[in-house]
């Protein structure tokens, strides 16, 4: 079946898999197949490269009652993955990870909103599900590598594998992978890292893949309808209307429950004002939403928690700061910044937020022998997001520093690591001697 269709893949115009390290693995490669276009083409490319490949899909969120298309966990998409695997001539299996997905991704997502944060569930899914549980499952099946359809590249560096942006900047997904470790990168393959979306779709059409015309799944895959309604359904009811105040604390009126707001939001505030108002901060304890003018959105920096470096921590420059470009949300162009890591205040306080708390609980759960049989991850030992905090000072003030989002550190195309935004820093952070010496003491 694939004979004549596979031929064009080796022809001119099709990029080599330059996103991956030079020595291709000889052993079994597992490819994560969501049923979407990208992972389907990744599977097709690997199968065409003549190496043994097995396709794995994850049943993450049981939506069998309403079969749907276009979300990474819909039942119809699993069927698409199965069909593509057959077209590619590779075996395919569906693994049930819905309990783990709820625990590691969905519950923290809800907890983040209820704590006044705006979460980034795709990062957690990559960190805890795909490159932890699924990688471990793949290894149990005898696979040496796990391939995905991510637009990012893994390059060999002097200190081990490095994570780099995709060549197609418009599709780059490296932001969502910042919590991976070197060991995980060494076990991973991103066959699409050097391709454009246009090339990927053209390949799918050439190959006649059933998913060639499928659209993008941009929304949160497990949420149908509005995120706020989902959070309320999961939390078991709607909260009380929040007080809307200005940055001086003056009451402006009452609005919706606090978790329905996002920092930087302008529309739907329902407050009459001479100039447009934006959400500046969300205060769940006080059930308060602070609004202000656009200039007040600008932050000089951010306070991050659960700092993670993919490789060894980069050496600091003058004053101990690490120079990097920081992206404070997935579509942020990036800003030059100086980074000061520091020990967390008190034991484990850096991970004391709702997200960190849930994470800590699930690590404990993973240690039980029953989970070992049920397939809990074994890479749990190398968890990202230690108890370290970090202060990040932007070269230019940035708007929309949003608690709950990831701040990811780049040097050129390389991802150094990142952290989770806990708060904005308004004043220029004082270069406390404690920050620099604390870091030195840890090394």
């Amino acid at each position, binding site marked *: 079946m694939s004979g004549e269709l596979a031929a064009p893949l080796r022809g001119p115009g099709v990029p080599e898999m330059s996103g991956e390290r030079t020595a291709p693995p000889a052993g079994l490669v597992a490819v994560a197949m969501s049923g979407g276009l990208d992972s389907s083409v990744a599977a097709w490319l690997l199968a065409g490269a003549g190496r043994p490949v097995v396709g794995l899909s994850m049943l993450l969120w049981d939506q069998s009652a309403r079969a749907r298309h276009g979300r990474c966990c819909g039942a119809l998409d699993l069927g698409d993955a199965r069909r593509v695997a057959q077209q590619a001539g590779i075996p395919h299996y569906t693994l*049930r990870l819905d309990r783990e997905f709820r625990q590691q991704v969905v519950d923290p997502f809800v907890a983040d909103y209820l704590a006044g944060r705006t979460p980034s569930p795709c990062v957690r899914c990559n960190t805890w599900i795909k490159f932890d549980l699924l990688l471990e499952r793949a290894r149990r099946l005898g696979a040496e590598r796990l391939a995905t359809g991510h637009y990012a590249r893994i390059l060999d560096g002097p200190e081990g594998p490095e994570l780099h942006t995709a060549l197609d900047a418009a599709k780059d997904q490296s932001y969502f992978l910042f919590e991976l470790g070197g060991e995980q990168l060494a076990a991973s393959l991103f066959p699409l890292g050097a391709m454009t979306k246009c090339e990927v779709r053209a390949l799918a059409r050439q190959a006649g893949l059933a998913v060639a015309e499928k659209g993008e799944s941009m929304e949160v895959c497990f949420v149908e309808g509005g995120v706020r309604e989902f959070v309320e359904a999961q939390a078991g009811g709607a909260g009380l209307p929040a007080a809307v105040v200005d940055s001086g604390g003056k009451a402006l009126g009452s609005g919706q429950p606090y978790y329905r707001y996002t920092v930087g939001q302008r529309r739907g505030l329902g407050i009459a004002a001479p100039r447009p108002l934006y959400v500046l901060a969300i205060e769940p304890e006080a059930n308060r939403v602070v609004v202000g003018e656009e200039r007040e959105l600008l932050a000089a920096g951010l306070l991050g928690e659960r700092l993670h470096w993919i490789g060894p921590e980069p050496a600091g420059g003058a004053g101990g700061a690490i120079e990097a470009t920081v992206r404070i949300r997935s579509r942020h162009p990036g800003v030059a910044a100086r980074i000061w890591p520091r020990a967390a205040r008190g034991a484990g306080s850096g991970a004391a937020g709702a997200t960190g708390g849930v994470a800590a609980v699930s690590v404990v759960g993973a240690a039980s022998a029953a989970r070992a049989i049920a397939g809990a991850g074994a890479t749990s*030992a190398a968890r990202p997001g230690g108890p370290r905090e970090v202060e990040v000072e932007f070269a230019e003030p940035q708007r929309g520093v949003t608690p709950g989002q990831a701040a990811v550190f780049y040097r050129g195309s390389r991802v150094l690591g990142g952290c989770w935004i806990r708060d904005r820093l308004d004043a220029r952070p004082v270069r406390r001697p404690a920050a620099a010496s604390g870091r030195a003491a840890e090394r």
Partner: protein
Amino acid sequence: MPQVYLDHNATTPLDPRVREAMLPWLGERHGNPSSIHRAGQAARNAVEEAREQVAALIGGRPPEVVFTASGTEANNTVVADAVERARGPAGSAGGHLVISAMEHPSVRRSAERAERAGLAVTRVPPGADGVVPAAAMIDALRPDTRLACLMLANNEVGTLQPVAEVAAECRRRGIPLLCDAVQAVGKVPVDVARLGVDFLVLGAHKFGGPLGAAALWLRDGVEIEGLLAGGSQERRRRAGTENVPAIVGLGAAAALARAEVGAPREEGDGGGPGERGGPGDRRGPGERGRAGEGDGSGERGGPGEGGGPGGGGVRPLRLAALRDRFEAGLAAAVPGAVVHCRTAPRLPNTSHVALDGVEGEALLIRLDLAGFAVSTGSACSSGTVEPSQTLLAMGLSAEEALSSIRVSFGIANRPAEVDLFLGALGREAAALRRLTGAALACRG
């Protein structure tokens, strides 16, 4: 990659001889059995011939056989009919059902529906040996019991159930008994008279026939209301145009099974359900002998039944030889492996194996990648694995249930394939144990 297929309880390959019988009906021959013209008459004749073949296999009479599309449909028909009969004038149903806790989902889910309709349901668990005690089934019967359901052979662990003993008591009390014999027919002799049941269900694709054809046998005089409203096919018991090619295939498979498994005994019930009264006497003498050697439980293998020419056949003998070869080599291949229900009367083709410290799902996939098709139990619609309800009902923990695989042999398997499989099973289980052990150590 050539695949060694060891999952015959899920479905069997179409027997080439059955395929030959079906081919004309997928080609030049066609016709609706209800039509008056000659094409229709030919189709009618083919369906009726199949009915005779099925009836002959189980010792019934042709008018007692109703063709359905699946065993699930047949089971649903019988339970739904019992619910309908239990409905009072107000529409809500009363009364009681008894089922074993290890029934096929088509019976278990139907019982849940009956519960929602207002019937009480008693679920009788199997013992640790995978056999539902006849006394426990009988104890659960009530004056208002509308129907009892006990399968003849369990689909997962392969144990044979004491259907005849339970049916005898049900008859005394006037309670109809539904026997789901889907996994037994075609592997061991099945005789409706000897079993004494009122309803018996079989499915073609479990013994060399095609998918899409099954049969419900109902004792003469028992009437049911069909699930489907429609034409008067199957004596108004199952509306819908007959699936002629599949039914022809079912008939052909039944004829082959009758020759190769053993026809129902001719000499009546003497000495039949005697001391065991249970399923042991359903086994042909050949298979009984082999199983006796294999699992050392000669107690039930007494020669009391005699070895009449109709009592046993080449098929159970061959299946048991494959299974016994596998089980004899198992301990050497996978240290610590345990065969579930080994001392219980069971199907000659099924081996349900517990592999301590081995995740069944991962093992299944590794074996599939290595070219061997097995199962972890009953398949789930989404293609993923849940702990087996049967094993849980037998008292195993979820963890034990998830570290088990089911190997079910078919008549086309060869001894050499068993040996190849033992080698692969040993390799893959050892690799998995290494990986799991490493993971545990890593987690500390």
